[in-house]
C-alpha cells in the first residue's frame, strides 16, 4: 500500500515538474496570446498578464482582414506543398539512378549533390539575386520554389538513398523478370517501400520552407506571392504603434504550423528525429 502510494506521488511530482517546464517554455507565446486579446493601452500599462475581459476579438478581425491572413496562408500552403512534392519525386529519381543504376560518374554526382547539405543558403543570396534578375524570375513564385527545392533536395537525396540501399535486390530482379522497366520498378517496388523515408523528407522540407524568411525577403517584394512570415512583417509596417493588433497577427501566423504539427504528430516526430540524426 505504502509503496503504491509512494509510486503515485512520484508520478504526480513528475507530471507537475513537466508542466512547469512546458509552461515556462510556452510562457512567451502565452503572453503573446494574452496581449493579442487586450487593447493597446494595456500594453503600455504595468501588469505582467491580464485577464482579457472581454477579449478584444477585433484585433483578430483586423489581423485576418487588414492583414490579408488567408492570402499569405494560401501562398505558404501552395509553395510548401509544391516544394515537398518535387523534392520527394527528385530524391526518389536521383536516389535510384545514383545508387542502383550502373553508370560512370554516379559516385561523383552523388558526392557533389550531397555537399549541398553543408552549403549555407546565405552564401548564395547575392549571386542568386543577380542570377534571378537575369533570368527574369525575381519576385515570382518560381524564385522561391526553385531555391527551396535545391536546398532541400540534397538532404532528401541523402535520406532516400540510404533507404533505397536497404531494399532487397531480389525484389527488383523479380520485377525485371516480369518485364518491368526502370520506371515500373520505381513505381511498383521503390515507391511503396520507401514511404517512411518519404515522410522524413516531407517533414524536413516542410521545416525548411514553411517559416523560411531570408530567401523570400531577398528574392520577392510583392505581398501577393509572399508567405506567412510576411503577414507579420507587412502588418507591423502598417500598424507601427498598435502592438496588440500586431500580436494578433503574430499569434495567428503560428497557428497553422501548430495545427499541422498536431495533425501529423506521429509522422512528423519520427521525421524530425530521423532527419536530424541523418544530417
Amino acid at each position, binding site marked *: 500500500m505504502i509503496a503504491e502510494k509512494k509510486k503515485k506521488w512520484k508520478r504526480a511530482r513528475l507530471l507537475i515538474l513537466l508542466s512547469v517546464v512546458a509552461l515556462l517554455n510556452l510562457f512567451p507565446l502565452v*503572453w503573446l496570446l494574452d496581449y493579442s486579446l487586450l487593447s493597446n493601452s494595456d500594453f503600455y500599462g504595468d501588469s505582467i498578464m491580464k485577464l482579457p475581459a472581454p477579449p478584444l476579438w477585433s484585433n483578430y478581425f483586423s489581423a485576418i482582414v487588414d492583414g490579408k491572413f488567408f492570402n499569405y496562408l494560401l501562398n505558404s500552403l501552395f509553395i510548401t506543398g509544391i516544394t515537398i512534392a518535387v523534392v520527394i519525386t527528385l530524391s526518389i*529519381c536521383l536516389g535510384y539512378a545514383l545508387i542502383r543504376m550502373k553508370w560512370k560518374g554516379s559516385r561523383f554526382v552523388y558526392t557533389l549533390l550531397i555537399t549541398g547539405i553543408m552549403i549555407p543558403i546565405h*552564401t548564395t543570396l547575392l*549571386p542568386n539575386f543577380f542570377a534571378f534578375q537575369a533570368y527574369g524570375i525575381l519576385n515570382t513564385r518560381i524564385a522561391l520554389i526553385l531555391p527551396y527545392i535545391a536546398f532541400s533536395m540534397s538532404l532528401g537525396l541523402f535520406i532516400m538513398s540510404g533507404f533505397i540501399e536497404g531494399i532487397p535486390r531480389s525484389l527488383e530482379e523479380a520485377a525485371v523478370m516480369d518485364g518491368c522497366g526502370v520506371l515500373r*520498378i520505381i513505381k511498383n517496388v521503390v515507391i511503396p517501400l520507401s514511404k517512411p523515408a518519404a515522410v522524413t523528407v516531407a517533414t524536413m522540407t516542410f521545416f525548411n520552407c514553411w*517559416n523560411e524568411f531570408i530567401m523570400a525577403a531577398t528574392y520577392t517584394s510583392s505581398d501577393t506571392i509572399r508567405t506567412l512570415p510576411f503577414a507579420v512583417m507587412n502588418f507591423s509596417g502598417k500598424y507601427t504603434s498598435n502592438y496588440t493588433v500586431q500580436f494578433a497577427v503574430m499569434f495567428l501566423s503560428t497557428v497553422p504550423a501548430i495545427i499541422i*504539427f498536431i495533425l501529423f504528430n506521429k509522422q512528423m516526430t519520427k521525421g524530425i528525429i530521423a532527419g536530424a*540524426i541523418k544530417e
Partner: protein
Amino acid sequence: MSKVLSNKKMIALLVLPGIIIFCLVILVPIFMSVFYSVTDYNGIDAMKFVGLTNYKKLIMDDKIMWLSIRNVFILSAGLIIIQHPLSIVCAIYVDKAGGVWEKIFRVLIFIPSMTSVVVTAKLWMNMLDPTFGLVNKILKAVGLTSWCQAWMTETTTALIAIVLIEIWVGFGWSMLIYYAGVKGIPADQIDAARIDGAADGHLITKIILPQLKPIIRINITLAIVNALKMMETVYLTTNGAPGNATQFVANYLYVKAFSDQKYGYANAISVVFIVICLIANFITKQITAERGEK
C-alpha cells in the same frame, strides 16, 4: 537486369532535372561568388579585377569578421553548455511520463520551435523592450527595478539575449532528438538498475548518459552548424548592433552585400564562409568517426 539498369536514356531522365536545379541554384552561384570576390564590383561602377585584395583585407584587417566568428563560438558554447543539459533532463522526464502525457508534453515543448523566426524575433524584441517589455515589468514587480535596462542596446546583454533566444527557439529540437536517444535505450537495462535500487541521479550518469553518447555527438554537431548558419534572428532584432557586438558571419555577409553594396567584398566573405563550413563539417565528421570506432 544489368541491361535495364544501364539504360543511358533512363539515367539521364532521372538524374538531369535534379542536377540542373542544383547547378542553377547552388553550384553556379558559388562560382559567381568566387569570380566576383576578386573584383571591386559594386553594381554601379565598372568592375575592376583586384586580385586577392578582398581576401587579404577580410582575413588580416577586418575586426568585424573576427568578432562575428567569435560570436559563432559563443553561441555554440551557449547551446552546448546551457541548452543541451536542460534538454537531456527534459527528454528523460518526458520519456518517463508515458502514455498520453508523454505525447502531450512532446507536442507542448516542441511548439516554440515551430514558430517562425519573424514571430520569435518580434516577440522577444517586445518582451525586452526597455519601457513596456515584459522582462522589465517582471523585474519591477519583484522589486528589482535597478536591474531593468535596455537589454538589446547594451553590448553584453544584447549578445546574451540573442544566445538565450536561440536556446529557447532550439530547445524543442534538441529535446526531441535526445528523447529519441533515450527511447533507444533498452528498457530492461533501466529496469534492472531500478531493481538494484539505483537512485535517479545514478541512473542518469551511469546508465543513460553513456548510452546517449552518439546522440550527444549529433546534437553538438547540429549546434555548431546552427551557430554557423545563424542569421535571421540577428537580422530581425539587433542587426549586429550595438556597434557590431552581436554580429554573426551570415548576417555580416548580408549587410555588406545588400546595405553597403560592396558586392566584391561580400562575395569574398561568402567564399570564406563556405570554406569555414566545409572545414567545420570535416572536423566534426573526423571526431565522430574516431570516437565511433571505439
